[in-house]
């Protein structure tokens, strides 16, 4: 396997072709839509909490994207299941990157982070906590 093919190594392609957590959710406890302005990819994230309204019970996602973003979001849904919402809302991106396990250039990093950023927006919105710096949120100015 060449150093390049690594990027699309088996586990990435597997998540890309068989994404876990793919789909939508009715009446989610938290949700947000994200967009990568560089390529126009959109992702919707849906979260269901456990009865304590804090533990993440299930995450689903829908939308289109490249293999990296799809695989990363798929992995993310598995990773955060059973975690506390307040922990995930401030999850260090390196934790997800470790899971993905491939070297990414800054631009592909944006692809890989789209799901995580959108999930964070969803959780912050649900909990009413302010968005951390560097996350534009989905409430930018609109023309009409």
């Amino acid at each position, binding site marked *: 396997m060449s150093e390049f093919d690594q990027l699309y190594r088996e586990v990435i392609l597997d998540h890309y072709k068989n994404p876990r957590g793919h789909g939508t959710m009715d009446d989610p406890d938290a949700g947000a839509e994200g967009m990568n302005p560089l*390529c126009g990819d959109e992702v919707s994230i849906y979260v269901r909490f456990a009865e304590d309204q804090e533990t993440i019970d299930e995450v689903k996602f829908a939308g289109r994207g*490249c293999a990296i*973003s799809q695989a990363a979001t798929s992995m993310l849904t598995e990773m955060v299941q059973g975690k506390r919402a307040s922990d995930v809302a401030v999850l260090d991106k390196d934790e997800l990157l470790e899971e993905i396990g491939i070297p990414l250039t800054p631009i592909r990093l944006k692809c890989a982070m789209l799901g995580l950023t959108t999930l964070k927006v969803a959780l912050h919105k649900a909990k009413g906590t302010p968005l951390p710096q560097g996350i534009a949120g989905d409430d930018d100015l609109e023309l009409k």
Partner: protein
Amino acid sequence: MAVEARPKLDAHRLRADFPIFEREVNGKPLAYLDSAASSQKPRQVLDAMRTFYETSYANVHRGVYRLAEDATAGYEGARAKVAAFVNAPSEREVIFTRSATEGINLVAYAWGLDNLGPGDVVVVTELEHHSNFVPWQYVAKRTGAEFRAIPFDDAGELVLDALDEIASAGNVKVVANNLISNSLGTVNPSERLAAWAHEQGAIMVVDAAQAAPHRALDVQALGADFVAISSHKMCGPSGVGALWGRRELLEAMSPFNLGGEMIRSVKLDRTSWNELPYKFEAGTPAIAEAVGFGAAVDYLTDVGLDAIEQHEHELLAYALEQLGGIEGVICYGPPPERRAGIVSFNVGAIHPHDVAQVLDWEGIAIRAGHHCTQPLMTRLGVAATSRASFYLYTLPDEIDRLVAGVERVKKVLG
């Protein structure tokens, strides 16, 4: 009597002017197929800027000393070159900007804020670049004018039948259109739109960012009122572009950026503007970049715009044929006759990012994304496309490499 053949362009020879091609990417020679995003720069242009900085640099216009005279002569000489390149009636009508984007914003703000209001209609097209779309959307919103877009058909060509319906929405005051679409390569009927705009009493703003590098541009023949171009797409440096505008309009307009250079007299309670083109060039301009832009215009003129157009046309026809022959590949846009050297395509359901990524392993640089034309992408029903675009240094061999690369993409991700 022999018919003289159109002088052909020798891309192999021209490549030697471009130092970037000495670079390898991933151990492969660089196949740069992203000239629609920005072009590479020939030594002639880089040398002109370097020499200027090393021997003639000073701030322009106000200095009495020799160096300032030299710098001013360099800067104004570049303006004369750009004016001649687009066949402007007067150098005074050529304003240096940062980019085509800024040129369009200048018109949207300085003309739009004062001349638009409720009941007026601002018309763009669905295949505009965001730079000729969002400024109009924004200024329409600010002034209360209607914002309408001319649709395009499945071949990526504007549907002019829609004009009547649009005209019925109010007083059409601005029509904005790119002469060549950066996503599809469509050569648009901007001339006809200009005529229609004038019938409506509207001004016609042509975004020629994608046209000026690739074919002869004549702002007078076009019949437009404003035409924006950009140096970085035409072998010149980044950071400079030009806006041509009709003198009467420019003179009647408010200025855009305010500051040094664009004034005639400043008092606490009363300020008046300088004459054209300075009225629209506030602050220190992109001096050395303008000089480089002038050198780029010289370079393109030497090569010959007709030869460039012909060369790219051949590449385009070849690329459409080759890419179109790959199973699962869909190419967007009009037939080669009405199209510039740009091919947007998709490879089955594989995301363009992945296509571009795998091609990069082969040293092939293409663009993947929405190409700053989201409304166009929405109309095509896709988020993004892959796009290969050609220039005077592009070789047919690079298209063969592209085709082989797409086959590899299918193997890796299909």
